[in-house]
């Protein structure tokens, strides 16, 4: 998605385009006439804002925010000021933003405010698989759930209208599957919402206890109205089929049901929350047996139970993982609805494990080699580098959520049980996202820890987005660049050192010195990501097989460009470097104890 | 060292300046004496001598190894260059014999040293009694052969005849053995012309 920089031609209304779910969300935001859109990158939501960045800047201000809460706050502000605003985030991003959401729900909106929240069933790229619908229930805000790209566009537009009509923020829930599936979309016109401006109404706009007490009953009343709205046939569509079975489903699950049970009667929910009570009751009455097919939590199923309706669901379908036609089929088989299918081609061997790894040339490798060498107790954080917890680096002892590392480290230090050096490691973007308050806390409370900031100049995990310390905006325009070193010093850290991540020894020495320092010491391990936002590839290296002793010390880097050859020495494989994969970082050269890694011809000194 | 006797001892010096072939001359002379059955000790000045500098070659000979191998009282002295005179004349023993190139003692064929005018030589401190000087055209003879550098060989021949203490055969043989082979003929001619030069001026001691 590097081409995000700069506006491209906006497709005309009426065209049929094949779009990724996230592109459709972006189109929906644009078509809805939103003027402000914000996000902090997070898989699988990242492309929404990236894509919005391709729409004309005069139409919509699209920006990366420091974190999801900031993103939501900016959107709230814009809505209060009278323009439609959207923010996009991944499910765990809503945890960060939830503080604002909870109160915003009471305050309502002025212009439309939509949160697009992408869940990650199956945990493709997250730390959990929480179900955002539960957040919707907690915040008492409506949740819409599209099931393909067309619906993503349509429901996003609808969400703004609901938001303004019911004076509430609206969540549009996506999932990884929807966000990352391409399907045809018929495009619409950009609408022109009514002109608004800030409304002076302190009871509504200022969340004081007294005001909140006034607003809460209104929210409950709003919830009831929304539930009725959700039951409308447009949002709770009944597809009449054959037989007495009725399936209640929504989102991606709907497509799987249609795939494996095309003839059944279906109630497809477009807006599961607030609960479309009437529609559910009517559907239940119209069929003999109701089965709810919903991914993750049994939100609808339990609600129907609470309504006293006879319903089945999670008895046949798991609460974990991503659904698929197979899984839906399996559940329906178990429910006795479908006959077993003949077995598919059996795989005669175990599939090859191919877990994600740090990239060839990743500057994080050396940082964690240093951690390993120091024997440090490492509190990790969220980013590519979380992969360093895996073999062979095995250098991260804990990782909870964005920005947690420093706080965790301070806690470990204060516990007083740890004899090893305590280090918090986090990326540049993660540090800005939520690492600064804990750093201030650590200095304030005199924690004896070291903080290793892995500054790769980008949000690498999500594909190389900009942030406040890259000096560029979402649209690629130059802007102020946060000086991380100065920032760290400003929090009160006196011992700060910046080292080239590719200088293994210097990095190690800096980390060692940092751990020997009493108090908070910070090391900035500094090298741009080799892959994003631009690929940085130097001339590759190669292994002189004759000199290789098969010690495989280089394998500890976990570099994917290094693998075994067929040549065996002393019972172990010698290694080789894939010339296409190698980025030329030289880290392997720096750890090789046998001086057998050389530049290929084009990499040699002229 | 055997018993001290120094029987038949003689001390000879060839002197002149660098480039005159004195060291080779000394070696030939020593060789000739060896061939005649004597024991010799031959030494020379060792300083690096360029053309024109003082140079000498000494030979001490006796029937057995001489007690002292260095010259102290010269019996025979060959002078090829006036620069060499002063250092050697004082070592001349009584009745010593001096052979000088005729260019050094212009106008004299031979005579007592005291009577000979040697340009540039102060003789004040030298006891000149009974010292015979033979002035012979050593260089001129060599020039006749087309090779002034063989004046040393001519001198050896003349000295052989004048001294009469070793055989002409030994000298001829020594010249052939010690001098460069490629100029054997020339050297043989030179030594023979030298042998003939004194023309009966042999001085018996």
């Amino acid at each position, binding site marked *: 998605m590097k081409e995000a920089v700069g506006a491209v031609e906006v497709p005309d209304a009426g065209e049929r385009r094949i779009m990724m779910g996230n592109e459709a969300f972006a189109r929906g935001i644009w078509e809805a006439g939103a003027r402000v859109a914000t996000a902090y990158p997070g898989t699988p939501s990242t492309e929404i804002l990236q894509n919005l960045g391709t729409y004309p800047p005069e139409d919509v201000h699209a920006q990366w925010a420091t974190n999801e809460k900031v993103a939501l706050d900016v959107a709230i502000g814009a809505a209060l000021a009278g323009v439609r605003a959207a923010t996009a985030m991944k499910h765990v991003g809503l945890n960060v933003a939830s503080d604002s959401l909870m109160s915003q729900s009471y305050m309502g909106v002025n212009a439309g405010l939509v949160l697009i929240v992408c869940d990650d069933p199956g945990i493709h790229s997250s730390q959990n698989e929480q179900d955002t619908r539960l957040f919707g229930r907690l915040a008492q805000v409506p949740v819409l759930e599209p099931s393909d790209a067309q619906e993503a566009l349509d429901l996003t537009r609808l969400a703004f209208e609901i938001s303004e009509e019911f004076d509430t923020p609206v969540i549009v829930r996506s999932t990884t599957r929807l966000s990352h599936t391409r399907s045809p979309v018929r495009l619409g016109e950009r609408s022109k919402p009514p002109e608004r401006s800030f409304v002076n109404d302190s009871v509504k706009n200022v969340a004081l206890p007294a005001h909140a007490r006034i607003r809460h009953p209104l929210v409950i009343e709003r919830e009831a109205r929304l539930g009725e709205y959700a039951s409308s046939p447009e949002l709770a569509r009944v597809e009449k089929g054959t037989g007495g079975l009725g399936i209640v489903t929504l989102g991606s699950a709907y497509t799987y049901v249609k795939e494996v049970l095309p003839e059944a009667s279906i109630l497809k929910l477009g807006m599961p929350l607030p609960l479309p009570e009437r529609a559910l009751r009517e559907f239940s009455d119209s069929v003999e047996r109701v089965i709810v097919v919903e991914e993750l939590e049994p939100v609808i199923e339990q609600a129907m139970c609470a309504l006293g309706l006879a319903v089945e669901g999670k008895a046949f379908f798991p609460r974990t993982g991503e659904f698929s036609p197979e899984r839906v089929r399996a559940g329906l088989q178990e429910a006795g609805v479908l006959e077993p299918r003949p077995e598919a081609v059996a795989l005669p061997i175990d599939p090859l494990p191919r877990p994600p790894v740090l990239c060839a040339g990743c500057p994080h490798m050396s940082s964690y080699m240093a951690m390993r060498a120091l024997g440090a107790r490492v509190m990790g954080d969220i980013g590519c580098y979380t992969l360093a917890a895996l073999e062979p680096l095995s250098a991260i002892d804990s990782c909870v959520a964005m920005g947690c590392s420093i706080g965790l480290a301070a806690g470990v230090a204060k516990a007083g049980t740890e004899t090893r050096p305590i280090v918090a490691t986090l990326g540049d973007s993660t540090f800005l996202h939520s690492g600064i308050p804990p750093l201030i806390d650590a200095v304030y409370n005199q924690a004896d820890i070291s903080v290793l900031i892995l500054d790769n100049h980008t949000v690498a995990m999500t594909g190389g987005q900009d942030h406040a310390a890259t000096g560029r905006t979402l649209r690629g325009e130059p802007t102020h660049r946060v000086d991380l070193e100065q920032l760290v010093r400003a929090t009160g850290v006196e011992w700060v050192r910046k080292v080239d991540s590719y200088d293994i020894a210097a990095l190690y020495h800096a980390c060692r010195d940092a751990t020997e320092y009493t108090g908070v010491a910070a090391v900035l391990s500094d090298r741009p990501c080799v892959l994003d936002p631009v690929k940085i590839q130097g001339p590759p290296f190669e292994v002189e097989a004759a000199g290789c002793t098969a010690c495989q010390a280089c394998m500890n880097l976990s570099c994917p460009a290094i693998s075994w050859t067929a040549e065996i020495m002393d019972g172990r494989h010698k290694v080789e470097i894939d010339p296409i994969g190698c980025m030329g970082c030289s880290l392997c050269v720096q750890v090789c104890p046998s001086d057998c890694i050389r530049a290929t011809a084009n990499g040699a000194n002229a | *060292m055997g018993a*001290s006797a*120094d029987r038949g001892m003689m001390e000879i010096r060839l002197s002149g300046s660098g480039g005159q072939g004195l060291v080779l001359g*000394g*070696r030939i002379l*020593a*060789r000739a004496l*060896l*061939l005649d059955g*004597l*024991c*010799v*000790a*031959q*030494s*020379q000045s*060792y*300083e*690096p001598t360029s053309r024109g500098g003082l140079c000498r070659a000494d030979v001490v000979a006796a029937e057995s*190894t001489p*007690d*002292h*191998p*260095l010259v*102290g009282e010269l019996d025979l002295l060959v002078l090829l260059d006036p620069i060499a005179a002063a250092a050697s004349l004082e070592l001349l023993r009584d009745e010593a014999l001096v052979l000088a190139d005729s260019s050094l003692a212009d106008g004299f064929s031979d005579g007592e040293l005291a009577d000979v005018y040697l340009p540039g030589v102060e003789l004040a401190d030298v006891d000149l009694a009974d010292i015979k000087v033979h002035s012979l055209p050593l260089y001129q003879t060599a020039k006749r052969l087309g090779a002034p550098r063989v004046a040393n060989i001519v001198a050896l021949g003349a000295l052989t005849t004048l001294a009469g203490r070793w055989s002409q055969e030994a000298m001829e043989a020594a010249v052939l*053995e010690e001098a460069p082979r490629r100029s054997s003929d020339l050297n043989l001619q030179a030594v023979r012309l030298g042998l003939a030069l004194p023309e009966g001026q042999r001085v018996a001691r």
Partner: protein
Amino acid sequence: MASDSSSGERQNLQGNVACALGAIAAGCRFYAGYPITPSSEIAEQMAARLPKVDGVFVQMEDEIASIGAILGASVGGVKSMTATSGPGFSLMQEGLGYASQAEIPCVIIDVMRGGPSTGMPTRPSQGDVMQARWGSHGDRPVIALAPASVGEVFEQMLRAFNLSETLRTPVVVLIDEAIAHLSETIDLSSSMPTPLASRKVATGDVAGFLPYAATDDGVPAMQCPGDGYRSHMTGLTHGEDGFPTQDPATVERVMRQLLGKLDRNMEQIECFETLECDDVDVLVVAYGITARAARRAVVSARERGLRAGLLRPITLWPFPERRFRELASSANTVLIPEMNAGQLCVELERLCPHPGPVVRLNRIDGECISPRQILEQIEKLHAHD
């Protein structure tokens, strides 16, 4: 250049040439050296002659390297030598010390020249006598030979190698410039009486081999690389096993053996000549070229009825003390002519059995002492009687 064949065995040889011939005759097959006046002809001769006997000549970058190289070659089992003059000899002192300590046979020729420092490179001197004795630090066994004629140079080279090999010690041959550059008639056939000796080579059990074991003659057997003993050699004070030690008892024991080995073998080491020493009033002690003058002087003195005698040490170090004491005790006067400021003289004053006059005759002007000078001195000493 002396021809080797045309005149039978008698030939005129320069001292330096005789030195080289003597070395080769003694079995020397390795020479390393650095050019220095007045020794250079030795190197030149060795360079020309060693290949003919399958030996190796190498001109090193300096005298330090030269002695290092010959010690290395000797360790390899090859008889080795170097030649130099005063300044170079000074540079070799560390290596000499090493050779003494590690007991490596080698022969060093010092063709003496005027000093100190660069001094008079082409002029004769006998100024290195004490350098030969005390030049290297520490206590060490020292053998120095002082031949007085070209023929003796040849002979003493044979002895030098024999002593060096049999006693596993460096042997210094001090040659006067005047002899080094003197051509003398010598008869090589009559100069070959000495049978060649070789070092005692280790034999027997490899396991129990001690490279510096105590032996009756004080000389341990020497291993040769490749023979399986694989011993260690060091300049550090070592035990019998060759490895460094600072254990006082071991150090004492091993050093005693090292320093005592010359005494135990004095018979083969001691070498001197006496002339007219039966009834001596004036005992002349002289070595090298000075002894040649002294010889003539003594002969002349005797001709004049003066009772002079000559003691000529050929092995200068260790000095033939016993014989000197005997002669000196019967003489009225000891006259020591030396081409230095009186180096041996100091030693002899110490050795003199009575406080009788020890008279010096020194020349430090780059000229040899002449027979006449010595004779005059003898006459003077008699006149004083």
